Structure formats: structure tokens, C-alpha cells
């Protein structure tokens, strides 16, 4: 709460998104609120990616990490504590978003809370770990910001977090099946609308946990305490291996079309059909 930038990006911005989504795109359609809330929850979780990478690079550039280096704290403990604190700080925003969706936008029901909880947990750790990878393979804040923006915009616009997946062109939909953000958005929408619990989210959770594990191990290996220590070229190749679980899942999804059909059904059920009915009413 002491850091105004953190307060803005982690609390104020996601809540502002909720008001924009539910207030403007939802157009008073209560049935659309769970669908839109799932998108906002996904954006909040995805924010971990940006926040953690910037924090770590800032600490490295300012020489703060150097001070930790002479203590018995190792790179893995340092990264794990960053992930944990990031997770703990994300949870209140999630709760506030639920509260606002329920009390201001009159959302009916709360979805499958167990499903939402495990997706938020696995998602936060997974996206934060991807942030750690970015911090590991960049040397300066400028480099970090450029890579973050490229990845962030892809996640933001091609995963269904802003533009619903069924509205994207078919080719883009196929590409989005290889993005971790797509599985987070889709999983949250299924938990919110179809009340799907953790047991039915096996593919989403496995890919996210797998990605988090690989990303964490690579980050711990490539971790640099000192701004002087430059990243070796082979590190960038290592870093790419963190997306292997999503490449496998993407290939599988492309073949069977499960995610796209779920996504289309949820969109039609909560946004498209109620809007059509609203338009038909005199």
C-alpha cells in the first residue's frame, strides 16, 4: 500500500476495468457479469507477470539484491518469497472484485469458488513466474519494459481477456490456443458460468503449474543479483522452454476444439443471447 504504482496497477486499474466491462459492455445485462468478471479476474492475475518482473529488475538495478546476496538467502528462496508475497497481495483485489460484481452489478451466484480459487492461485504463480523469466533474461529496465509490453499486449488482446474469444478471427483463435492467458480466461469463465470445479480443470491447471515449475527453475538458474552480471545468450533459449506446456496443450486443443466450443457456449449463454433478447424487447 506504500507503493503508489503498485496500488494503481494492482488495485485501482483492475477495479476500473470491472466498472468499464460490467457498466459499459454488460449494458445492464446481469447474466453477462460472471463472464465479464472472469475476464477482469484474469487481468488481475495476469498483472503479476508485469509487476514482479519490473520489481525484480528495479531491485537489481538499484543494488538492493546485492544486499540480500551476502545473507544466507539463496536465489530460490528469494524468488519463492517474491511469488508468495505477490500472491498474498493479489488475493484482496480478487475479493474486492467479487464483492463489487455482486453488490454493484448484481451478479447472481458466485460461480464455483473452489475452481476460481485454484485458478487464481495457479494463475498468479504461473504468470508471476513468467515475469521472473523476463527479469532473468533482460539486462535493463528499458529491455524489460519492451518485452513486457509485447507479451502483455498479446495476452491482453488475443486471449479473450478483453475481446471475447469467439469474436476473434479463426486464425487468431488458433494462435490464442498457445497462450497461457487463454487458458486462464477460459478456465475462470467456465468456473464462473458452468460452475466447473478443480477436478474438471485438469488441462488448464496442469499447464499452468507445469509452466510455473519450469519458469521457476529456469529463473532460479539464471537469477542475477548484480546489474553488472549480464545475461548469457543461452539463457534466452532456456527461457523459451517455459512455454512448452502451453505448446503441447495448444496442439491438443487445436486438434479437439474443446476450449473454443466451451468459450462459444459461455459467450452465447451470458452475453450474446441475453443482449439479443434485450434488443427485441420493445
Amino acid at each position: 500500500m506504500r507503493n503508489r504504482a503498485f496500488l494503481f496497477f494492482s488495485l485501482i486499474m483492475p477495479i476500473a476495468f470491472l466498472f468499464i466491462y460490467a457498466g459499459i459492455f454488460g449494458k445492464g445485462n446481469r447474466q453477462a457479469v460472471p463472464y465479464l468478471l472472469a475476464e477482469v479476474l484474469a487481468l488481475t492475475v495476469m498483472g503479476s507477470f508485469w509487476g514482479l518482473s519490473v520489481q525484480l529488475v528495479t531491485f537489481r538495478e538499484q543494488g538492493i539484491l546485492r544486499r540480500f546476496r551476502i545473507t544466507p538467502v539463496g536465489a530460490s528462496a528469494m524468488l519463492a518469497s517474491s511469488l508468495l508475497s505477490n500472491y498474498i497481495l493479489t488475493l484482496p483485489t480478487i475479493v474486492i472484485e467479487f464483492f463489487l460484481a455482486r453488490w454493484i452489478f448484481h451478479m447472481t451466484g458466485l460461480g464455483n469458488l473452489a475452481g476460481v480459487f485454484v485458478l487464481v492461485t495457479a494463475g498468479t504463480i504461473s504468470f508471476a513466474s513468467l515475469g521472473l523469466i523476463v527479469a532473468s533474461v533482460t539486462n535493463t529496465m528499458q529491455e524489460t519494459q519492451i518485452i513486457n509490453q509485447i507479451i502483455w499486449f498479446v495476452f491482453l488482446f488475443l486471449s479473450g481477456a478483453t475481446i471475447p474469444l469467439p469474436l476473434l478471427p479463426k486464425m487468431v483463435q488458433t494462435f490464442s490456443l498457445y497462450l497461457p492467458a487463454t487458458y486462464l480466461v477460459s478456465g475462470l469463465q467456465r468456473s464462473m458460468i458452468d460452475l466447473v470445479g478443480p477436478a474438471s480443470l485438469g488441462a488448464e491447471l496442469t499447464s499452468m503449474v507445469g509452466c510455473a515449475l519450469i519458469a521457476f527453475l529456469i529463473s532460479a538458474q539464471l537469477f542475477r543479483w548484480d546489474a553488472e552480471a549480464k545475461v548469457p545468450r543461452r539463457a534466452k533459449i532456456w527461457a523459451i522452454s517455459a512455454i512448452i506446456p502451453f505448446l503441447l496443450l495448444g496442439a491438443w486443443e487445436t486438434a479437439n476444439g474443446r476450449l473454443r466450443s466451451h468459450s462459444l457456449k459461455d459467450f452465447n449463454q451470458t452475453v450474446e443471447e441475453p443482449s439479443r433478447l434485450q434488443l427485441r424487447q420493445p
Partner: protein
Amino acid sequence: MPSTAAIEVENLVKRYGNVEAVRGVSFSVNEGEVFGLLGPNGAGKTSTVEMLEGMRVPDGGRLSVCGLDPQRSGGEFKNVIGASLQATALPDKMRVREALDLFGSFYPRRKSTAELLKRFGLEEKRNAFYSQLSGGQKQRLALAMALVNDPRAIFLDEPTAGLDPQVRREIYDVIEELKKEKKTILITTHYIEEAERLCDRVAIVDHGKVIAIGTPRELKERSGAVTRITVRLAQPENNGALNTLEGVTECRAETGEYLLYSTKVPRTIVALVKHLEEKNNELVSLEISAPSLEDIFLELTGRRLRD
């Protein structure tokens, strides 16, 4: 090397690309001793101390701290050392007491935050953010953090660099307190005053090599640097006559004073008194200025420390 050595360094080498920053440095620091690495910027002091702290991997040589290898002993090594780094910081929004609590929590054995706050005069600033501290307060916090685990060996890399003289003296008082506790301390500095006041022994480092080592007194005695004798006389004297006194290498007359540069001070004084008696002249005042470490550095390298 003596068996009581807490820090041992033998033929230490560190290269950065084609540049050899540390070129076969050797020294040892006894337990309870305050040892200084004195040299200009870029002499290899920080590289040496950072290898001792385990932050840099040596390219050659051998070193041990409290009997442990910094690169191989991991947590056990880090539990016995404390350090104040040259280029470091804390998060701006971290409070002073939080920093001490957090860093203390990393160690199995720790000093209480209240004790450290009191000892380093930070009680009033306990709730202040790091960004609100002055340079001197930040440095005192860095020293408090270096002691948070009650270490056996303490490394202070340029602990007073960039501080004004008054704050620097405050830091000296703190380090002198540590000295009384018989802590083993390694200080790097380019301030002569700091080395002379705080260190039991000093190694003068230049271009990655130790060029002289010993107590400040030994270094001065061993050195060929001359002592300046400033005398004021009742009547003017002949410059040439004073120049021939035993031990005098040079004599200069300056605004009613004579500056005699001597390599044999007692003999020069005896010869001076004898000469004045013969000439019926009288000595009004006499002041002896021993060569400083700066003079010794100049003699050894042909450069001043801050060149």
C-alpha cells in the same frame, strides 16, 4: 601465515575480460584486528573484498574467512560474516526497523533490533522510510545491518565515502566501538585519515597489487619519506647553513619560518640546537610533522591517492 588469522588471502587474482583487476594479492588479518586496504579508486580493493564476501568468484589464488571458503561453504560462511557494501540500497519504502527485522530473520543467531537501533543512534528514525534518511543515517543503518547476525568477520567497503567530515567522524566512533569489542574488521578506504585512525595494520594497494603492508607506524618508519621540521627563530638565519645540518635533505624559508626536511630527525634537531648556540640565535618554536600514509603512497607510486 599465523594460526590466529581470521582472514587469509594468497595470490588472489580477478580478471574482467582482458583487465586484471586483482593481480596476486596476499595478506592475512588476525582475529580481532582492524585491517585496512588503502588505495585509489580502481586499485582492486572492492574486487578483493567482494571475493572475500563470496560475491565474486576469484580467477586464481586461495582465500579463507574464519576457516571457511566463501565459494564452497554457503550458508555457514554467510552466518559468520557481516558486510556493508559500497554500491547498495534498500527499497525506498522500507522502514528502518523493518530492514533490521527482515535481515535479522535470515540468521539463526541475531542481535535484537532495539539494541541495534540504540547502538547506532537510529531510535528516533526507527519508523522512517529508507528514502527519508540522510547519507549518514543510511550508512549507520548499513553498519547496523552488517552486525545484525553478530558476525565474526566484518567487511566495510568504503564506509564513509561521500559523507561530510562530521558524519565521517561519527562513523569512525562507531567503528572504534567495534574495535573495542575485538571484532575482525576489514576496511577498504581511500581516506588516509580513516586508515591511520582506525586500522591496526594497512595494506597499500595499487593497480591490483599490494605494494606495502604493516602498521601505519611501521610503514612510516620503513619509508624513505622525509619528516618536516618547522622552526621559528629569534633572528633570521642563512638558508644554506641550515641545509648542511645532519639529515637535512632540503630547507625552505617561508614567511618567517624554516621548513627543514629530514631523514634523521633526532640528529637534525641536535645539530640545529648546536648551530643556533654557535650563532647566538634562539629557537622560538619547533614542530615536527611525521610523513603521512599519503606521503608514503606518493613515494611508492609517484601519485597521490586521489589522482
